[in-house]
């Protein structure tokens, strides 16, 4: 790094001793309003000699004594060339680019097209908007900035993965949902197929999210991100583009001033968690307030005011003690988490010459997590260059290398996460976390854990010490990714040009899991070992090559553009794992140390080719009517028996109304557009034959046992297709002070293919077939307003609105069977319903409460012979809600005053529901505030933990008129303890006529004729089974970014031998407002990291995720 700086400085000095003959100076103003234009590039044509205007629009530049041409350039304005002659004063007036319509955007396959001719909705975000907020993850910095796109972070951790859903998820819920409808990413024209061995764009192991492959892209290196939303935009990518396409163009040296430029930036943020879930800290371990119980972690036990004594293992002194137990009085999660830091350093060097340009960028990111003992470092090198061999031939090369390394990253989702244990399993009567830091028993380092919760027989712990998990269960991850391309553009003649491009992506991931001794009881170790060691390696390699010939011709009022191409994709992947689920000796993490019979290994490989032909044809008439056609034919499958091909067409049209009619002056542009596309999801021809596998491990050293794969393939299966229709309107008003784009779309995913459960009697557990169709309709609106624009002030507001609703339109009879609907498991206590007319995202309760259906007590819960709520079965399942927001509002505003600019990004998600598994566990484990007492108006139960919390007295033994009540109450009866409570409902006297109201007993109406229970049962049981009782509104507002930016005056910068100095203060996730009032982030409601299994990426169910994380920091950018 030092050498690079030295090298750059040498260049700088070389430039400063340029031969000088005269100084030309002047002022650059806006032709429209005469205001001064700061930041305009002024360059002597054909040289690297240049300057930039200061805040008053003034510049000065040394140039040869006579001749020469000055080139004035500025974003959004037409580049102007002025002959310098002999002048020493040279003022320039610049005009805005003709309504910005000549702006060129990159579309599918890297074909550049003028924005005005596009007939479909795209969104593009430029580099300056990506880097403002200082996010380390390019995908995270997109949030709130584009319409029609729903970005959700898997966790608040700054290095976590981001799920991107363009125009919503149209997949049936049994097909894996959001995680399986990720868009195609294309970097510099080369598609990055999700070819990791794990088959997913998110690398997850052991519930640990190591970040998307795309999340490693450094925002500093990105020139622009273009989102192709609809099928028409992405139709040229065939099936891979069915979920939309995100096109990323990295920065090149092109367009800068001539010669060498060096710039560097350093950004650092402190990441601190806030908004912790509130838990009760008053009652300790046990089931009733009069006695301790150490066998489980429920905290329905005695009050921790010092009045109850008990035996406890003192983790600090490491001995059994007896005495009054008190509350640790700490929020465990808060006490556990720390402030993380992220430091990103970037240096880049660019060069721009007549024949070509280059850019070399080196970035180093270091993140220390908010979770103790977690870290991520990332180093990347990116090189971009282009060179003109001749006037007609340009060669472009791009190479990137990214290395990500985490010495440890923690599981943040699901039941194995440390957060889960801190929230639900560490009773508050145990000592503060700071007293548990010595997690080994003294003298037994690496062997015996100093457990947080001890069993009675001494050293065997039943709940691992949190610090042991932190330091002795390590998830080590390394990713090496090389990707790049080489491209040749050859202008054959005025009409024909040829593009040849070949890109490759080589991805290597390595994962290790190390678990020290300490989980197994000492007595079991001789038989089953302890500790664990896993090592996984996966490699993926793909090459994508295109040859495209294009033709352009203008004949009178018509302009034709046509292109035809051929594409070849080669994917190969392999993965290898070894898993020692127990080790023989401690502290040696090696497969050779595997405990006998505890070592398994596996290797898998795949090869996948694909050929395609495609063509586009565009015609425009008088620059006002545009028509575009595309077609693509994919040939997929490797073996001849698998081979199959598909054709995907698209058509789009747009009309620039303002070119056809003379509109009032206020209208800069009015465009109407229409598009249609039909893309599909390739399905190779499968064999419909049973296949065998083998049990691992074997039955014994000499006997193997087998398995059979019992999946049936529907012989009449059809490929899935995705039909998109969209209609839109773009309108620019008042000299671009208002810019509006509006799109209405409909996307039908027809013949969705999936595995459906079949009646086991058929001999098969599932069948691959066409399950059904989903139609997704929505509206997206983008609005940019520039209300203030003056010499000193500039204010712009951009808003985006996204709404969509996907409905199941038809479903296969084979899937539904005779019932007309099907419930699929979701998270264990919730289900999704698959039925025609059902909206995607709806979640249903698994267990509805059985209620009285008729008579006086209709609607009241019908209690069983233990006085408990009963499950009434599938037929009564009620919808809990839909996890998708009704709409998303993104707000992005920039206020500029002279050299200061303030930028704010917020997002408002309105509507939607989520189920809190946190609440389920907190209630059942006695950690929630709600578990203390029923309160006055609780509709489900009445009671409390003891008399002080509203607990009721127990009735005298045998006092009830009903034997069932005595049977239930008497064993629990306790004269000394007012800890009775009851479920609100009615009980039908056994054997009596259910239609007669007189046969019902209202629980609680007569104290003696009431089924009582203590809170542990009366409340904990209710909440555990009935998910409908813990769903919450997901409406929230997030202030995602606030940044304040100061640009040092040019004069001052020049004195420091610098061309530009920029200092920003950055704040991300500054605050969050939840309508529910809960300290949970509804956005992180995922049951697990998108990985494997049916619940992969199941949304709307929130469990033990990190609290919100606020990042504050600064960024300094310098350029030479």
């Amino acid at each position, binding site marked *: 790094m030092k050498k690079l700086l030295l090298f750059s400085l040498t260049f700088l000095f070389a430039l400063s001793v340029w031969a000088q003959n005269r100084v030309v100076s002047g002022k650059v103003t806006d032709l429209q309003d005469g205001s001064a234009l700061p930041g305009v590039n002024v360059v002597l044509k054909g040289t690297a000699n240049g300057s930039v205007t200061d805040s008053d629009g003034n510049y000065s530049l040394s140039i040869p004594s006579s001749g020469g041409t000055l080139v004035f350039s500025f974003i959004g304005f037409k580049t102007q060339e002025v002959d310098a002659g002999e002048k020493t004063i040279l003022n320039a007036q610049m005009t805005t680019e003709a309504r910005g319509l000549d702006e060129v955007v990159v579309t599918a396959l890297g074909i550049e097209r003028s924005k005005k001719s596009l007939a479909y909705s795209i969104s593009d975000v430029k580099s300056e908007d990506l880097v403002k907020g200082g996010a380390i993850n390019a995908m995270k910095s997109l949030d709130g900035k584009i319409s029609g796109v729903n970005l959700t972070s898997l966790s608040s951790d700054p290095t976590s993965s981001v799920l991107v859903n363009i125009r919503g998820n149209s997949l049936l819920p049994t097909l894996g949902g959001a995680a399986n409808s990720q868009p195609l990413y294309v970097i510099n024209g080369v598609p990055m197929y999700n070819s990791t061995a794990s088959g997913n764009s998110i690398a997850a192991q052991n519930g640990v999210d190591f970040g998307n492959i795309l999340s490693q892209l450094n925002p500093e290196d990105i020139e622009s991100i273009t989102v192709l939303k609809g099928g028409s935009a992405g139709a040229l990518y065939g099936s891979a583009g069915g979920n939309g396409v995100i096109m990323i163009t990295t920065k090149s040296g092109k367009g800068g001033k001539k010669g060498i430029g060096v710039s560097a930036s350093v950004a650092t943020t402190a990441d601190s968690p806030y908004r912790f879930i509130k838990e009760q800290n008053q009652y300790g371990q046990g089931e009733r307030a009069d006695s301790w119980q150490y066998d489980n972690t429920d905290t329905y036990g005695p009050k921790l005011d010092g009045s109850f004594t008990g035996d406890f293992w003192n983790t600090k002194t490491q001995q059994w003690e007896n005495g009054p137990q008190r509350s640790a009085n700490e929020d465990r999660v808060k006490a556990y988490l720390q402030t993380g830091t992220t430091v990103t350093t970037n240096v880049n060097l660019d060069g721009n010459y007549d024949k070509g340009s280059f850019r070399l960028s080196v970035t180093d990111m270091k993140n220390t997590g908010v979770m103790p003992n977690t870290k991520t470092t990332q180093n990347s090198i990116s090189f971009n260059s282009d060179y003109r061999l001749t006037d007609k031939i340009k060669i472009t090369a791009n190479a990137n290398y990214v290395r990500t390394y985490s010495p440890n990253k923690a599981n943040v989702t699901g039941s194995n996460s440390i957060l889960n244990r801190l929230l639900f399993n560490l009773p508050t009567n145990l000592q503060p976390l700071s007293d548990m830091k010595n997690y080994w028993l003294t003298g037994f380092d690496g062997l015996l854990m100093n457990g947080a919760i001890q069993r009675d027989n001494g050293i065997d712990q039943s709940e691992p010490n949190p610090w042991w998990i932190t330091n002795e269960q390590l998830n080590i991850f390394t990713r090496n990714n090389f990707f790049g391309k080489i491209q040749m553009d050859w202008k054959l003649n005025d009409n024909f040009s040829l593009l040849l491009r070949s890109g490759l992506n080589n991805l290597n991931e390595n994962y290790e899991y190390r678990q020290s001794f300490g989980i197994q009881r000492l*007595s079991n170790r001789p038989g089953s070992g302890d500790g664990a060691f896993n090592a996984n390696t996966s490699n993926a390699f793909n090459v994508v090559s295109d*040859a495209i010939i294009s033709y352009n011709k203008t004949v009178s009022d018509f302009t034709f553009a046509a292109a035809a191409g051929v594409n070849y994709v080669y994917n190969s992947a392999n993965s290898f794992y070894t898993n020692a689920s127990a080790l023989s000796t401690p502290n040696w993490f090696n497969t050779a140390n595997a405990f006998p019979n505890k070592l398994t290994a596996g290797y898998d490989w795949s090869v996948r080719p694909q050929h395609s032909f495609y063509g586009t044809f565009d015609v425009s008439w008088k620059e006002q009517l545009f028509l575009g056609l595309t077609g693509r034919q994919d040939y997929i499958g490797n073996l001849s028996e698998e081979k199959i091909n598909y054709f995907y067409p698209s058509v789009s049209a747009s009309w620039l109304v303002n070119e056809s009619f003379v509109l009032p002056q206020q209208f800069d542009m009015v465009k109407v557009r229409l598009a249609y596309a039909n893309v599909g999801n390739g399905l190779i021809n499968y064999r419909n034959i049973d296949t*065998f596998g083998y049990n691992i491990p074997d039955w014994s050293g000499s006997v193997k046992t087998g398995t059979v794969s019992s999946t049936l393939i529907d012989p009449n299966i059809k490929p899935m297709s995705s039909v998109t229709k969209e209609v839109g309107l773009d309108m620019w008003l008042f000299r671009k002070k208002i810019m509006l784009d509006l799109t209405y779309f409909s996307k039908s995913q027809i013949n969705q293919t999936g595995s459906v459960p079949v009646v086991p009697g058929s001999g098969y557990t599932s069948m691959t077939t066409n399950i059904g169709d989903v139609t997704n309709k929505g509206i997206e609106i983008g609005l940019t307003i520039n209300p203030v624009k003056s010499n000193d002030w500039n204010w712009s507001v951009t808003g985006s609105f996204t709404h969509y609703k996907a409905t199941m339109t038809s479903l296969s009879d084979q899937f539904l069977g005779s019932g007309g609907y099907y419930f699929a498991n979701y998270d264990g206590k919730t289900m999704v319903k698959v039925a025609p007319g059902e909206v995607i995202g709806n979640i249903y309760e698994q267990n509805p409460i059985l209620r009285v259906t008729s008579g006086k007590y209709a609607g009241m819960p019908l209690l069983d012979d233990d006085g408990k709520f009963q499950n009434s079965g599938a037929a009564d399942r009620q919808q809990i809600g839909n996890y998708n927001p009704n709409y998303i509002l993104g707000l992005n505003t920039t206020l500029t005053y002279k050299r200061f600019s303030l930028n704010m990004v917020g997002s408002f998600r309105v509507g939607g529901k989520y189920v809190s598994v946190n609440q389920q566990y907190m209630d059942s484990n006695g950690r929630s505030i709600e578990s203390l007492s029923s309160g006055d108006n609780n509709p489900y139960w009445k009671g409390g933990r003891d008399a002080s919390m509203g607990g009721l007295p127990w009735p005298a033994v045998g006092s009830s008129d009903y034997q069932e009540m005595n049977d239930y109450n008497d064993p629990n009866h306790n004269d000394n303890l007012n800890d009775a409570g009851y479920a609100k409902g009615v009980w039908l006297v056994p054997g009596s006529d259910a239609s007669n109201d007189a046969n019902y007993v209202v629980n609680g109406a007569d104290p003696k004729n009431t089924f009582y229970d203590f809170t542990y049962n009366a409340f904990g049981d209710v909440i555990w089974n009935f998910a409908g009782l813990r769903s919450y509104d997901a409406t929230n507002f997030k202030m995602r970014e606030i940044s304040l930016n100061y640009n040092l005056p040019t004069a001052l910068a020049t004195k420091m031998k610098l061309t530009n100095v920029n200092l920003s203060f950055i704040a991300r996730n500054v605050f969050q407002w939840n309508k529910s009032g809960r300290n949970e982030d509804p956005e992180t409601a995922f049951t697990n990291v998108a990985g494997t299994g049916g619940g992969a990426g199941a949304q709307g169910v929130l469990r033990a995720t990190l609290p919100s994380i606020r990042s504050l920091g600064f960024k300094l950018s310098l350029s030479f």
Partner: protein
Amino acid sequence: MKNILKSIFALTLLVGVSCSDDDLRKHDVLAQKNAIENQADPILLSTIITNSTLFYQNLGWGDSRLPSAAQVMMKNYQGGDNIYSSFKAPSDDLNNAMNMLKYVQVAIDRANERGSNTHVGIFKTFKVLMFSFMTDFYGDVYYSQALQGREGILYPQYDKQSDLYVALLAELDEAATLISSGNESISPTYDLMFGGDKSQWTKFNNSLKLRLLVHASAKLPNAAAQIAATAAKPLLSEDADMNASIAYEGTTSRNSWVGGSNNWGGTTGNEFVRRRPCKTLVDMLATYSDPRTSVWFAPIEKPWTTNIALDGVSFQTNSNGYNYTSTWEYVDLAVPANNSPEIQTQIANGNILDVDKKYAGYEAGMLGDFKNGNGHYNTADGGAYGNFKVSPWSNLFGQNSNALLKAQIMNKDEVQFMLAEAVTQGWIGGSADTYYRKGITYSLKRWGVSDADITTYLAQPIITLPGNKAGDLEKIATQKWIGLFSVASEAYLELRRTNLPDIIGNNNNQFPIRFRYPASELGQNKPAYDAGVATLLPAEDSQYAKMWLLQ
């Protein structure tokens, strides 16, 4: 310049379009695809043997539902198995059986292709075993239309249980013919059950047929004749250790006994400690002074004594190679007020049932709560999962493998008890007493009881059959019930059929007589489900509805 261009052009094309069949590994891909479509006979055999024995052993011990219903095992910690709560919910065991049957079906197809008749016959025997499990526990189930998804039958109709029984018996005969007609050898290593001995497979086939005939003896018109014919064929008997069971390897969770450290964490594992012998079983063994007591049960950790002199006195028990320490605790049952308040509460609640005993069981039909078992109260002292007043299972059941622990489908003592009943019922001739005593002897031997102890045991007057039909049947059934210990699925079915021994009162909890169909049948196979439910009495999918066998 031209050369540069040409080379770039060539390079691009080279990378792009030149993937040969070698790069695509076509030959390899095809070979792999073909390879996984077949599996050798020995592996098919070892798989079917392990799958089905483990399935049966799970029903017999791992899943506490049937052991509890058979009053062999109770839970002293949560859950409703002691009061049959788990019968309330639909049971997915039908689906588990079908998963195994799928494998059996493809094994039959592969072995048929190779002409391995003996293997086909063995596999068909297991096919009948699994279908008989399904119909015995559910009633009408699919059979003739089952396993034909590939042929387009996605929603198979159920066969009537009465038809099913006839068809299963016929398929068993067909299997027996195939076993004897095949001339290929059976791998002694992979035949984990009978070591490659074809004659044993024939015996297992016949014994299974006898079991099914006994199950349906009250319903089949020609049951007696069929039983007589089958009893005349070779059955599992005589040969030393030839039972339809396999030994555990004890190295992985799958090949280990469920109570061992590879599954439940051994004798200190929570799941192990939560399960206790049922008082019904412990008391029955005590009545017979049964030597299996010390093999199966561990002594109570802190047994009650009414002798104050023994209070706090410890004693050692060494049984079967395992050592246990127990300490007497004094209780004054005559004057409750002399005890501590906690013990007084236990006396008042009527919880203290077994005093001055070394072994005691957990009372059947009590809620799963350690505080309910024989007056256990001192939880703070560490009896949280555990219970100091009720016997734990012996350490034997906490092993990963042991010569006495087998994954069992059927033992030869069961065959003897069936024959003893057949004589008593008049279906066959011979001496019921001889079969009865053989059955007892085989069972005792199976649990490692010495010949001398067996002789002593059989010499007890209480063993002698009373000589009247009802009395003989009860004695035979009682010994059969003890003999079916850890084969709880059969113990449950026999208890359901005979109501003998007369133990199913179970604290006024109604005895469930079938499994409810899996919820997926209601959801996806409703016409078949409805037809199946219609033949039950009453016609509802309830655990109390009677299937044809019980009507």
